């Protein structure tokens, strides 16, 4: 399968523009392309530019920002490639199979060239029905592979383009079967992953067409790119918001074993995709969360957090842990028992994340800690006396806003007892006093000053704790010193009534007429 040199399909770069109009259009194009580029980078769909066996256009070598003129040319070439495919399919004579494969390959190349393949042109020329025909049962592997590859890249585009794959879905799903060759199955999984990544509607279609079981089975082998692609496609397929698929997945026989095996032993790339599957399982399905909590999953997640430095891997692993803690009270009450080794391990890896340079890790680690700190008094003591607190205090004053908000939750949770049956939380004076003495109050007052409603609420609630709970009536003085009164006064003309009442209530109660009289 010799690779045609890309040069034969590539024009020489366009020489300088002819006048302002062309330049303006190119600039406009760049802006739209820039926006499109940004969106495509962030979309859950992935373009296939290098095939399973390594052939295909090498990304980056081509000029990805296609000019207008080059774009028109590409579209024209694509339309004609589709025409070629049409006649190749119609052709019944000698060498028909090779003709078809060549035509498919040509189309595939055009669809893999740049970051923005000429999908619209391909669809307009009627590519889909032809590609569906090429997927028919009994077709040679090469043909199936090229057809699935074309469909993959068509599906990586805009929503209407992804939806265009609807007629092809049943066939793509059938080729996931164990009788298919691995590269073919993988390419079909990739295409389906893009379709699933589009949205809930398409996800439901795929689920009703039975896409889940074969994809799940593809995760069972120990290694290989096929396993990785299948895991990625599955993560898109089960991401909800309906928890049905997640619950169905965890029930697949031996799937839990496979997940644990990959978390334990597989290379980081594969473990990353599997971890994302766990993220969705734990975020959506209470049943799956229960199953995972009872297994070794937490231990394995902690192991990965401790040993890996790959941000790609750490994000889903940390989040999985967070979801398991957040989603099931059993996690903190029966697994992460203070004093047990596993609990110390969890605190340790969370501290590691707090120390990292990455925003996402710091934010989500704080979130996990806040949930553990919402546990029993022993949990609060454990965190309070750990390495986490000095780090959290520093983050509260220096980190970006979204991290500070999460840190605030941890610190505040450390200062109140668990919410009992009667709903009355009491203060843990020792923790409150110590944290305030170490300077956390100004961080909370900063949150009160922010425009974010939730953050302001959190800040005001902590201020209430300080005003009420600091011994010797020191609270009001401390709050005043940090310009807390000022911060609360802003709410007088704030549009949020809840916050207005909270702030007013505090000022009235603690800074009323008699404030300072007894000094």
């Amino acid at each position, binding site marked *: 399968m010799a690779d045609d040199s890309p040069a034969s399909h590539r024009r020489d770069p366009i020489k300088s523009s002819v006048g302002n109009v062309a330049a303006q259009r190119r600039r406009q194009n760049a802006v739209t392309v820039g926006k499109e580029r940004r969106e495509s980078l*962030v979309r859950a769909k992935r373009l296939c530019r290098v095939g399973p066996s390594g052939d295909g256009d090498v990304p980056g070598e081509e000029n*990805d920002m296609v000019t207008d003129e080059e774009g028109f040319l590409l579209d024209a070439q694509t339309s004609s490639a589709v025409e070629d495919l049409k006649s190749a399919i119609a052709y019944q004579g000698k060498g028909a199979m090779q003709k078809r494969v060549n035509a498919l390959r040509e189309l595939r190349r055009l669809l893999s060239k740049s970051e923005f393949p000429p999908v619209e042109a391909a669809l307009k020329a009627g590519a889909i029905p032809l590609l569906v025909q090429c997927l028919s049962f009994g077709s040679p592997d090469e043909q199936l592979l090229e057809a699935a590859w074309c469909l993959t890249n068509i599906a990586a585009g805009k929503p209407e383009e992804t939806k265009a794959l609807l007629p092809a879905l049943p066939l793509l799903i059938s080729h996931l079967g164990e009788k298919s060759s691995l590269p073919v199955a993988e390419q079909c999984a990739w295409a389906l992953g893009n379709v699933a990544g589009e949205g809930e509607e398409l996800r439901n279609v795929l689920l009703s067409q039975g896409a889940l079981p074969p994809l799940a089975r593809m995760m069972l082998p120990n290694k290989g790119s096929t396993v990785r692609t299948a895991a990625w496609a599955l993560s898109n397929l089960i*991401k909800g918001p309906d928890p049905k698929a997640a619950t169905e997945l965890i029930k697949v026989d031996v799937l839990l074993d496979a997940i644990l095996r990959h978390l334990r032993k597989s290379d980081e790339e594969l473990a990353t995709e599997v971890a994302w599957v766990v993220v969705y399982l734990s975020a959506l399905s209470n049943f799956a969360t229960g199953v995972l909590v009872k297994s070794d999953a937490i231990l394995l997640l902690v192991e990965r957090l401790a040993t890996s430095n790959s941000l790609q891997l750490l994000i889903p692993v940390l989040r999985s842990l967070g979801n398991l803690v957040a989603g099931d009270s059993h996690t903190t009450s029966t697994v992460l028992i203070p004093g047990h080794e596993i609990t110390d391990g969890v605190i340790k890896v969370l501290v590691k994340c707090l120390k990292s340079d990455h925003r996402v890790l710091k934010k989500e680690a704080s979130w996990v800690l806040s949930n553990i700190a919402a546990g029993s008094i022993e949990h609060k003591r454990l965190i309070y006396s750990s390495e986490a607190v000095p780090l959290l205090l520093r983050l509260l004053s220096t980190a970006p806003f979204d991290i500070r908000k999460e840190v605030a939750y941890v610190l505040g949770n450390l200062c109140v007892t668990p919410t009992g049956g009667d709903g009355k939380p009491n203060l843990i004076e020792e923790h409150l006093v110590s944290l305030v003495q170490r300077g956390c109050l100004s961080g909370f007052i900063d949150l009160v000053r922010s425009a974010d409603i939730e953050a302001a609420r959190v800040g005001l609630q902590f201020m209430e704790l300080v005003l*009420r709970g600091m011994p010797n009536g020191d609270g009001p003085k401390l709050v005043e010193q940090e310009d807390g009164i000022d911060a609360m006064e802003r709410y007088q003309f704030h549009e949020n009534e809840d916050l207005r009442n909270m702030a007013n209530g505090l000022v009235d109660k603690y800074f009323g007429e008699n404030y300072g009289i007894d000094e």
Partner: protein
Amino acid sequence: MAMVVDYKHDSSFPYWTSIRRRFAPDSPFFSSGNIERELLAKQVALDLTEDERNQLEKMIDNDARGIFCPIVGCDARLTLLEDFEDHYNARHTASCSVCSRVYPTSRLLSIHVSEAHDSFFQAKVARGYAMYECLVEGCDLKFKNYKGRQQHLVDKHKFPTSFEFFKKAHPSKKQRMKNQRKRAVNKKDEEASSKMEVENEMMEGLVSAVSKLSTSDSSPSTVSFGRRNARGLTFVPRSVQPPLQKK
């Protein structure tokens, strides 16, 4: 470990309770991690430069966190949360040149100045003119007394009953000490003035009462329409006080 069992049955303040917080996978809470996932996956394939990546993150952050200014009547859109403080200081800190109180809009400032420092205003009030403007821009209703306006704000504009445009301030410590001494000396007078409510019937007594009170340093502990700080926004006094006149 000492615990302060001090929970008041005052159900109006939502006290801090420590509870687990769970998020759905498509919650905005997770979006920065999700974006990171896709960027990292495609970075290798597309050779994103460090610069491009930073730009992308900034663009995404901005979109997600743009909000509107929450101060009533302000329709400013802030692209970044961080911009709020600057915006607030620039647009919502109009300060009174007489008493240094601060207000969130120039309109409220001017209403304050009329109601608190303008004897002409008080004279007209005394003569029965409807001088107290509704605080909500565009409403244009006026009232003969403070309480009438207050009621209107609560009834028509859903202000909380605890809202007061004129509010006792929390003066600085120095000021408090001064007031304490003054209180000891002028206890009787102070008591009289602090109990005064601006009612229709009291209009007549108002102007004369004002002139009787000693105002060498205008007892801000009983009458204050905002803090003495240059920063910060005014609070409304707890009880209605007659505005004082500086001699």
